[in-house]
């Protein structure tokens, strides 16, 4: 399994969820677990570039696929990914627990719709729950992320980025 561009050995425990494998076996604790039944979206990661719930998948099912987590969007010390930057500018996070899931969903959304309509924005984030912000700032952040993504900037492309990241 490839995670954030690096190869990792196959998970040992066949009943290990992908979310638990990422968090507890690979130490990628940026992927959060809010409900473990696929409703809250906190555990969203990209599987071959498309957003998926990592709590609804077994880790072994990710074998042969490329997984991108929040840690894979921008290398340490590098500038934030445009979606991360937009969330910062628009105060689209408070406690930060749902944030990695939202960011990954929005990366997936913008890969599909680089200039989303308001309805596409709502559809793109309608699978993620946030209990802090009331979503208004997240909607603003998606629009801002689309603007930022349209600006070519090599510095924004993080190491080992999955498909659908900052493709122009």
């Amino acid at each position, binding site marked *: 399994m490839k995670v954030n561009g690096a190869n990792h050995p196959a998970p040992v425990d066949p009943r290990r969820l992908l979310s638990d494998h990422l968090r507890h076996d690979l130490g990628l604790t940026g992927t959060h677990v809010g409900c473990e039944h696929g409703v809250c979206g906190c555990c969203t990661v990209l599987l071959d570039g498309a957003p998926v719930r990592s709590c609804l998948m077994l880790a072994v099912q990710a074998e042969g696929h490329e997984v991108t987590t929040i840690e894979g969007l921008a290398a340490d010390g590098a500038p934030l990914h445009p979606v991360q930057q937009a969330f*910062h500018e628009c105060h689209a996070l408070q*406690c930060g627990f749902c944030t990695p899931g939202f960011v990954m969903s929005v990366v997936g959304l913008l890969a599909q719709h680089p200039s989303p309509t308001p309805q596409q924005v709502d559809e793109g984030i*309608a699978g993620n729950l946030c209990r802090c912000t009331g979503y208004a700032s997240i909607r603003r952040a998606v629009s801002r992320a689309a603007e930022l993504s349209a600006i070519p900037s090599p510095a924004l492309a993080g190491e080992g980025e999955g498909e659908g990241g900052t493709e122009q």
Partner: protein
Amino acid sequence: MTTRWFGKRVQRVEDDRLLRGHGRFTDDIDEGALESYLIRSPFAHARIRSIDVSAARAMPGVVAVYTAADLPFGQTDLPILIPHPNLTHGRTQRCLASEVVRYVGEAVAFIVSESRTVAEDAAELVEVEYEQLPVVITPEAAARADHLVHDDVPGNVAAEMIQEVGTVQAALAASPRRKRLHFRFERGAASPLEARAVWARWSTSEKKLTVYDSTQSPTSIRGGLAVLFGLPESSVEVIAPDVGGGFGPKIMLFYSDELLVPYAAMHLNRPVKWTEDRQEHFTAVNQERGQVHEVEVGYDDEGKLLALDVDFIHDAGAYTPYGIILPIITAAQVPGPYRVPNYRVRFRDVYTNATPTSPYRGAGRPHACFVMERTLDAIAAELRLDRAEVRRRNLIQPDQFPYVLGVAWQDGNTAIYDSGNYPALLEKALANLGPRPPGDHVGMGLGMYVEGTGVGPYEGAHVQVLVSGKVVAATGIPSQGQAHATVWAQIVADELGVDVADVQVTGGDTRRFPWGVGTFASRGAVTAGNAMHLAAGMVADKARRIAADHLEVDPVDLELVGGQVRVKGSPDRGIPLAAVSILANPVRYAFGGGTEAATQFSAKTRPGPPLHEGEQPGLEATGYYSPPGSTWAAGCHAAYVRVDPKTFRLEILKYVVVHDCGRVINPMVVQGQIEGGVAQGIGGAFYERLHYDSEGQLRNASFMEFLMPYCTEVPAIEIDHIETPSPLNPLGIKGAGEAGVIPVGAVISSAVEEALGVPITEMPLSPLKLFELVKTQS
């Protein structure tokens, strides 16, 4: 140039690591910890006949299984956090139940193992034999007392309290018009997206207990653990790391796991962690809001209130660990921004076989607001008056502050509104709401509220300028997303004349600041914010004294600007703050970083000892702020909604908020608090219902069936402010954390009532509820 940070939309300093996935939530901490699982009661009321854990203990990978019999504190009743003379029959649970369980989710046994999956497998081997007992599940059933939750609590009544201002019976009798009303509010749940978690380590060599806890009050947890385990407080460290939302119920002493995890870590001498899953969070974590209110109101032909009599029962759940704070808040907050010349309120706090209650964002106020606002709407309807006009005629006027309510407040004092301008809130909200949108089944809703915020007893802060000139600041209260690290930095940066980026804040870590109370009740900005202001001010004064000595000028002629302490009007004459920090600590041995300037042969000679009498080393100070009473925020919400007459789907066409929380530290943060609060209010008003059946089983304990709003249910919210500074604290601020949520139920009800023409007297609503109401009426 002096930069004022206070009042600016300063971008958050805490975002970067959270956005990169580098946050540190309790379950992110591992360090080889054993994992654990709590076995909980599947019944709402049952006698435990026997518990057999032998098979679980024998399972490979299981390290320990604890029942009450295995704990030295197994027979200790957990504390009543806030005792009150009227709480005559307060009852708390034990860490693990061994005789009777009184709600689904009450903890019975605790398994520690090499992995969580092993612990969950072992749980299936634990045999608990229960004898089911009759269940009491609604507040009405509790008050009827057909069955008792506690054998020794007659009538299921934990507490009763009656308060009266004026003479209500006489005033009602003399009122030209009277009305009796009945309002019901069901339980709700805060549902932070991070459930609860605890991680603990015991160091045998240092005799030190370290606990990470997703709590809103690490200082209290530390005190409690020290008492329970007989350790000096200095040997117990409690840290609330990043906490994924709190909204109230993460403040409790104690949830069972908060004792069991540290105890097991000490007992087994290995780190132990426990992470709650979502299903258990639904019944294991405190809830709120269940209340039933009987109202009699007297008023005149102009719609002016003459007397108000409110009698309500509060659903306490199975135990009363949090005392009677919730009904006390409701009792005090019913009158809201209105003059009620004669007011009597009685409440009874009754036991039910449900999860105990403690504050959830709003804490007694959404129901209080619902009662008052629905009552005013009923008066307006009766008199065929405009709803805004009825409110206008009853509002407390700006020249009537301080306004003495005369009813007990949650801090032990009488409630006194410190400042406000309620008519301005109303008029601004109406203006911002604008004309009614066209179409059928559209209703307008209106709701006003006050909120006692910034409750004591106190908070403190420590501020230190390092020899590098950078600043560190710490307070006891933790953040659950309220941007504390940013707003405290703004306050400190203003006092010290430095950049916000140069102030690093720590909260909720008893190693850095051991004193304080917690983050709750919209109090952080008022209490810890003012403590930061006072501590930073003390540091600035000290910097002026030291720099004045060095520059041979009068301290009053100095200012702190741009990282310098300099002479006012002579920007060239100054000394860097870093240098002042070095001089503040006379050293014998230089340790780099420029500290040679403070050694005995380098420092400027001056009479007297190196450390002046009464002076402490270091450019640092600790300050405390203890409010004389609560400061009262207020606001007005108004909305247009459309209800589909066939599907009863709710569409919020426009929602406006006008808010007054005194002086605003960071408008971006306050906007976020209000937007989030309103969204939670919308959830509570129309979507989120805890569906308990007659057996006390929560039938919708998952996010599939407990419907929290997604973005598709929450409209854009238009926010406006007025500012009436609080005269009670140096910064003039009032709390803003809960305001957004308080009036939403009242506003939505008012609007739906008009849209459909059916009376709305209960919360929450739902499409099904509206369908039934319309059907009943026709």
